[in-house]
């Protein structure tokens, strides 16, 4: 597929050439340890360490945080992150481990953090030296995010935090957390405030991190308990009571609808060599050509062929929507396409994995722990993991409410 890129500015063209040259000379190669399908499944410290070294190298070469200002450790460029991302995708690199940091914490701290603090924090975030996690969900605050019960109480110049966060990916490796919590019980939305809080240095001193086991059998996310954790006021983002507004910056970037493009590497296959990734419809063709079905290849079954092509069309449609989202005159509402990204991408990836499951036939019953499982059981694993993202970041049912209300102007369903 040809790349549907805009014509580069001179700065972009020069930068693209730099990225391509650097990647050609500095691709990290095959990992020496097993790397899971995504950063959210990281549990082996050795895998993390190898990926951190890759992120640091890419950061030092200027491929991470290109559009952030230089005082915050960024590249001080304009619209160059997307170029670095494209180059890394094309070079089939590993992904970055600091995924929550890059995608959510960085833009939030950048736009709302206090001077002095943000400069210090962002540099090690972008380089991947410090891993970040996100403290939003609670046992009683899932899709209803504003129902936060974790409480920060002002005592003198500091804040004392008590509460319980859940589904906290990467907390077991994190140095820092972005934390949404309550500072007033008088108002649901205006009673929220936003902090960055230390995790690693506070373990056993007000912070407890306990792993949660996913339906796949993998760890990767956690519950985090705060008991009288003391946090300095300089780690508060924006005003007291402005937490919901700050959270909207986080969520906009998480949904791919933010101001800054998230630094994102990837394309390298973590399973068997030479195969398309589990989230690519192209990979289904390879799979169908290898999978037996009713005495023929699955690739010869018209129903399977139709289903594969449907997904390829959805994938191409997603790509062309991204292209159109950049042209104001071709979109009726500026958020109409960006607010679709999370919803469309996660359902598409779920359906790709589900179709792969079908294509594998009887052998799809074999899991990762069986050496005979097709492709090491990667597709059934990807299918189960795909629910993590259709649920997280505002379940897709909530995304449909957001689109219906903010874009179509339908009345609120609450």
């Amino acid at each position: 597929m040809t790349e549907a890129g805009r014509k580069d500015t001179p700065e972009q063209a020069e930068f693209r050439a730099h990225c391509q040259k650097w990647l050609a000379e500095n691709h990290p190669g095959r990992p020496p340890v097993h790397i899971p399908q995504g950063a959210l499944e990281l549990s082996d410290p050795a895998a993390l360490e190898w990926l951190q070294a890759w992120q640091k190298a890419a950061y030092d070469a200027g491929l991470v945080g290109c559009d952030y200002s230089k005082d915050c450790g960024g590249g001080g460029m304009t619209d160059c992150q997307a170029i670095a991302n494209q180059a890394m995708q094309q070079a089939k690199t590993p992904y970055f481990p600091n995924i929550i940091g890059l995608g959510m914490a960085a833009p939030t701290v950048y736009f709302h953090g206090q001077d002095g603090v943000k400069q210090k924090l962002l540099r090690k975030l972008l380089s991947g030296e410090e891993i970040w996690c996100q403290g939003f969900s609670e046992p009683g605050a899932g899709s209803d995010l504003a129902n936060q019960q974790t409480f920060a109480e002002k005592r003198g110049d500091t804040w004392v935090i008590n509460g319980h966060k859940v589904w906290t990916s990467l907390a077991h490796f994190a140095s820092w957390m972005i934390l949404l919590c309550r500072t007033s019980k008088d108002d649901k939305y205006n009673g929220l405030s936003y902090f960055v809080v230390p995790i690693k240095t506070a373990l056993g001193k007000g912070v407890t991190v306990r792993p949660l086991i996913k339906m796949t059998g993998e760890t990767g996310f956690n519950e985090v308990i705060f008991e009288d954790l003391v946090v300095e006021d300089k780690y508060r983002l924006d005003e007291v009571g402005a937490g919901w507004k700050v959270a909207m910056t986080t969520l906009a970037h998480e949904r791919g609808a933010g101001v800054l493009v998230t630094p994102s590497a990837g394309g390298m296959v973590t399973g068997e060599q030479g195969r398309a990734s589990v989230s690519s419809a192209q990979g289904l063709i390879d799979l169908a050509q290898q999978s037996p079905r009713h005495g023929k290849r699955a690739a010869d079954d018209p129903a399977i062929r139709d289903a594969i092509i449907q997904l390829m069309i959805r994938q191409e449609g997603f790509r062309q929507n991204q292209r159109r989202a950049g042209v104001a005159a071709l979109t009726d509402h500026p958020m109409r396409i960006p607010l679709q990204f999370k919803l469309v991408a996660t359902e598409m990836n779920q359906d790709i994995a589900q179709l792969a499951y079908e294509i594998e036939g009887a052998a799809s019953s074999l899991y990762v722990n069986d050496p005979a499982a097709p492709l090491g059981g990667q597709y059934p694993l990807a299918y189960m993991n795909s629910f993590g993202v259709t649920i997280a970041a505002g379940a897709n049912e909530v995304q449909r409410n957001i689109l219906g209300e903010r874009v179509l102007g339908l009345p609120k369903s609450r």
Partner: protein
Amino acid sequence: MARSGNFGFGDDEMMLRDSARKFFADHCSADKVHALVAHDANIHRDIGSNWDKALWQQITGLGWTAICVPESAGGVGMPVVAAVAIAEEAGKAAFPSPLIATFNATFVLRECGTDAATRALANIASGSSATLAMTNAKGSWEASDTDVRFGNEKLNGTAWYVQDAQKADSIIVSAVSADGIGLYLVDPTARGVEIIPDGIIDLTRDQAHISFKDVDAMELAPPGAGDEAIRRAMPAILCMVSADMVGAGEWLLQTTVEYARTRVQFDRPLGFFQAVKHPLVNVMLEVDRAKSLTYSAACAIDEDPGQALREARMAKSAASDMAVFSASRAVQFHGGIGFTWECFVHIYFKRQMHNHVLYGDGKYQRTKLADLIVGEAA
């Protein structure tokens, strides 16, 4: 190959789209179309063709049908996305006219490369309409399937499923002889030509089968070259029909959303209920996917021709499925009123159902794409 980020929609194309949007809003509102095409609800009504020829002449006078005629033939020579922009607005207005038929004829003529074809293009540039007669009695969309024969300098046989045949000033006929498929220009009033209108569901256009008995014809593409010209034009043809469906899909979405905002049941507007809200969001997702794929395919025709057929089939597949879905949800969410003749929704419902099969529905496109991408099945 590098492609324009804006799909090739430059200032000229955007200006054209905006003036088309304004023109249809001013002259072709849904109530006017309804009065024009739906004045007779009788299921056994006479077969006819309801359109406002004066409005069509205004459009040709504005030069819209000349935009994709090459400059060498007296046209404007704009890229295919310009025609997509007009076709989308025409679909949004459910505009009854030979617009899409004339665009499609233009794209086929552009591939003929003969003096006769250049003269036919010049006629289109100066306001004449045209349509393609290339389908056989079985309704095949394959370029080489025609029931019309060419021999002894005459056309004989019948062409089927000819779009807007009663409105067209000329007919481009695909006909087979011992040397292969050729293309021929026929005057619909010529001796031996009989246009037999079909009774069709869509109220905004007409369709016919055309019988040829010893008809004199001017050769546009010689035997052996005609099917290839149709094949090369197919990406653009698929884009035109897709753009029409995208425009109609947007109308159905916005009209149904407006109804869901205002119609109150159980003390709430319909759109409060997620059983209505979420499927409407799904309609929007499908409209946007089809729109972006159509723009991309049209852009590829001018900027990356090797990818054009693949992308156009993807666009037509997405647009056809969206057409059915947007139409079905619009009727369903309008409730009882949506099921009546007086509600404008059925005009668009019928146009979508007509368009979705033209040149192959979604499943047909995906069968073709599977051969292209996965390889022929064993």
